């Protein structure tokens, strides 16, 4: 009896394998195929929508599901314009990582042609082929860092800062709620993707600012008698010695309607710079005004700081009046002094818009920022979109290639400024996900692609977290969460001083 079962199993395996081969032949168009395939004259509907996207060499495989989850199976064949082919079949397109990397490397600067065949109710259908472009520009960063948080209201819950290997699907925790129970932490920031300089903030009881230089953590209390709160929304100076921060008080109010859920606002906000060598705060009267200065970012050469500013309003009642202008102020890293004048690059009140979260590219060519109808916290604004300013000409344009009807925000550049990552709520309006897109030397931006996962529909369908604060990381982040626990619960903080305070 056992023998017969064995024979039947082997026969079934061979039969399946043979059918796969024959189907593969059909897809290749070699004329050897014998499985009847119905041609469908439209592109396949896949999740995530990777049709026509541009990817870097060595990115994790663009696995995808067929949108219709009632299919019996699918066959996908990828052929490179410069040679090579790979194949996947099963419930979803799950490519071998090594084969995929080999294929993308072989086709750098070329394109990949995807042929998708789907079996449903015993019939195979082949859809129109689609292309994915492999950029000439490399993305050499090891991966991404981001925070995952429940898209809730005022309770953070099970927060975690993670890092993700972009070459594979592996994710590693940097700091999670289990390491520092009951604490809220945010705004992890590396210096131009280099994690040898790292900062993050912890709010509430036992709060503080963590500065990690070359693996050594220092927890500082950035609130002083001269500043209203601890620093947040940090950004490193290219030299790696200074950190620009906003000092603010963030609040939320909640809508009664069915559209936008939350309005986030700040009751005050100023910008300051921390010298991490001396733990001195550098203040400027131009950035310590009654206006709300927020989201500082050093320019690529480190000689100026971009930030946003809005007039004080009676929030939350006047939440619609919060309109941020995008400004720039000089900074001299040698003397640690701010400039004497402020340039207004984009005037919020004059244009009835709000310009926030300026992020200059590291090559000094572009400035990416968020534009929304109001407010200074774009991720909560449904109409927040990404815009791009050409720093050579000062001209701006909306990045229609990447924007959607929902919020786009939290953008950051990779080291060679050819790629950027941003968060978007386009899928469901609530659970923010990460997208990557490329930009060439002329400012042409590609269609963005959702951060790949091994089984995208299962992963994103079951994920109850929203992503925020994504950034590229040059190497894997080394962070001692045990040490962070000791520092947080010992509550010993290095107190900062105000520089040149008389």
């Amino acid at each position, binding site marked *: 009896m056992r023998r017969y079962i064995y024979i039947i199993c082997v026969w079934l395996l061979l039969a399946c394998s043979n059918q796969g081969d024959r189907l593969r032949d059909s897809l290749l168009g070699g004329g050897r195929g014998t499985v009847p395939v119905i041609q469908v004259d439209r592109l396949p509907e896949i999740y995530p929508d990777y049709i026509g996207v541009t990817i870097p060499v060595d990115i994790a495989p663009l696995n995808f599901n067929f949108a219709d989850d009632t299919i019996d199976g699918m066959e996908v064949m990828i052929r490179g314009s410069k040679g090579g082919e790979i194949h996947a079949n099963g419930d979803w397109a799950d490519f071998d990582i090594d084969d995929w990397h080999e294929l993308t490397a072989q086709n750098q600067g070329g394109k990949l042609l995807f042929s998708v065949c789907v079996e449903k109710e015993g019939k195979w259908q082949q859809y129109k082929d689609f292309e994915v472009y492999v950029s000439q520009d490399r993305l050499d960063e090891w991966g991404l860092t981001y925070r995952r948080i*429940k898209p*809730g*209201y*005022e*309770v*953070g*819950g*099970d927060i975690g800062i993670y890092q993700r290997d972009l070459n594979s699907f592996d994710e590693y*925790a940097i*700091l*999670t*709620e*289990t*390491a520092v*129970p*009951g604490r809220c932490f945010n705004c992890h920031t590396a210096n131009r993707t280099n994690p040898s300089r790292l900062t993050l903030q912890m709010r509430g009881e036992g709060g503080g600012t963590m500065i990690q230089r070359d693996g050594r953590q220092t927890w500082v209390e950035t609130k002083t008698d001269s500043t209203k709160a601890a620093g947040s929304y940090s950004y490193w100076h290219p030299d790696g010695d200074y950190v620009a921060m906003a000092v603010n008080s963030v609040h939320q*109010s*909640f*809508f*009664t*309607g*069915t*559209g936008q*859920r939350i*309005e986030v606002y700040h009751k005050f906000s100023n910008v300051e710079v921390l010298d991490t060598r001396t733990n001195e705060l550098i203040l400027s009267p131009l950035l310590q005004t009654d206006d709300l200065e927020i989201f500082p970012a050093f320019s690529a050469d480190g000689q100026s700081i971009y930030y946003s500013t809005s007039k004080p309003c009676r929030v*939350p*009642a006047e*939440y619609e009046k919060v309109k941020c202008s995008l400004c720039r102020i000089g900074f001299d890293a040698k003397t640690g002094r701010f400039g004497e004048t402020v340039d207004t690059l984009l005037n919020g009140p004059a244009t009835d818009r709000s310009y926030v979260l300026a992020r200059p590219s590291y090559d000094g060519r572009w400035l990416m920022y968020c534009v929304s109808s109001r407010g200074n916290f774009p991720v909560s604004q449904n109409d927040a979109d990404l815009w791009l300013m050409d720093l050579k000409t000062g001209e701006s344009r909306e990045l229609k290639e990447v924007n959607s009807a929902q919020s786009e925000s939290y953008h950051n550049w990779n080291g060679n400024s050819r790629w950027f990552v941003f968060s978007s709520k386009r*899928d*469901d*309006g*609530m*659970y923010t996900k990460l997208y990557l897109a490329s930009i060439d030397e002329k400012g042409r931006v590609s269609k963005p692609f959702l951060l790949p996962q091994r089984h995208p529909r299962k992963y994103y*369908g*079951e994920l*109850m977290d929203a992503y925020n604060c994504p950034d590229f990381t040059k190497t894997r982040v080394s962070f*001692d*969460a*045990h040490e962070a*626990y000791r520092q947080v619960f010992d509550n010993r903080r290095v107190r900062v001083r105000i520089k040149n305070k008389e």
Partner: protein
Amino acid sequence: MRMVVAKYGTWGLSVLLGIGIFLFWYVGYPHALSYQEQYQLFLWTGDYFWERVSVPGGLADWLGEFVVQFYYVEWLGALLLAMLYVALQRLCVVRRFYLLSFLPPLFLLWLMGDPSVLLSLPVAIVLSLAVFRLMWHVPVSADLLAVPVLYWLLGPAVWLYVVLRIVQWGWKHLWTAGWMLAVQLMAYAFILPQWPLQTVLAGAGYYRIPLHFPSLSGFDKEMYELIRQDYLVRNERWDNIVKRAGEVQVKTPFWSNCVNLALAEKRLLADRMFDFYQSGEDALIMPRTRDLTSMLPSAEAFWRLGMVNSAQRYMFDTQESILNGRKSGRCTKRIAECMIVNGHYQTAAKQIDLLKKSLFYRAWAEEAESMLGNEVKINSHPVYGRMRKLRYQENFLYSYEEIDKMFGLLFMANQENRMALDYFMGQMLLKGDMQGFQQYMGWVQQYGGYRQMPLGYQDAMQCIRVQSNVSGSPYAGYVRRMMGRRSAE
């Protein structure tokens, strides 16, 4: 006593223990079972299992949650608990000291009076004892392998096993204790970078609040009264709440919220609100509080009033306040309902997919799934369709400081929303806004649906008009006190 034991056998007493434990939970503390059940959502998936067993103590945790899901059916939950207690007692039997075997279950019962003690602790203890029995004839050298494996599956409760093995085999085998400690320290150093040492040593799954330990205070009467009120609210047993409120009073906003909601549901708020303790301006709705219990009655009141977004917010924040990071079946279900009412079908589907993987929420989830995107079905649903009519029709920012106005606007959005009217009038009284109360009495007359003006309101009005008390009227008494306070200000 020895004669009794000899006569009826040791099993007889064990069965009696089981019956006692069953009755204790099923008759005495069903609300405690409901409380435990609502702070987890056990999923029947391989991923859920592997996620649990990927950390030390994970198997005990998974088994504990497996049992707790059956608390949804109270008698079944009580029965499983009784079996667990009996198992513990039987494992503690030592022939010469039979009656001492009842002490551990009784101690455990007392320990579980702290509602943050999770069932994974007794499960881990029972399994540690069971393994000790199984390993009775196995040489102690096997502990080189057994200790790390058991630590990973059951957590630090395995110390119990280690100690018993040392007692069994003699002090020269004290090295097993050193080995257990070494295993924990190695796990801390190499495998658990996100776990503080205290968590590694004491376990992550035994207690709901990380880095804390059981209070050893037994069953606190007032705390369990509040848990009972919430349980009654969850099960919409409004008559029981009002009846119980007349017998036991706990002077907290939570208690006031529960009682007032029950009164409103019975349309007795206008008449009897001040027959019961009122905590102050937070007696109808509590402000946001960062814990896993306080906001529940307010969330339930929001939902029934038609303040759908606020109900969703309070439920969401309640769920995120579960400090061991678990989901809540109760909260997830209500969040999904709010999303359905708001037409947020994609996010509702996410919650529903989760509930479909559970045992007791699956049927509801499948029914809810059939509604997604089906406007006709939702609009004709007795609850969701009604919510759509009751909810705010305009978009503006919620303000707790102006909660009376929020109720007023809600009523104006739909004048059939009598509960909103009752809450509106009640909140003005709580706030001491007698002018507003007088001003809007016309609404009560016109829209309140009362055959005659509620006695409470009549007393309050009389008190306001004549500026003196109405004897025997708690309503008027409260109004009088508030007027006195106002004039003093």
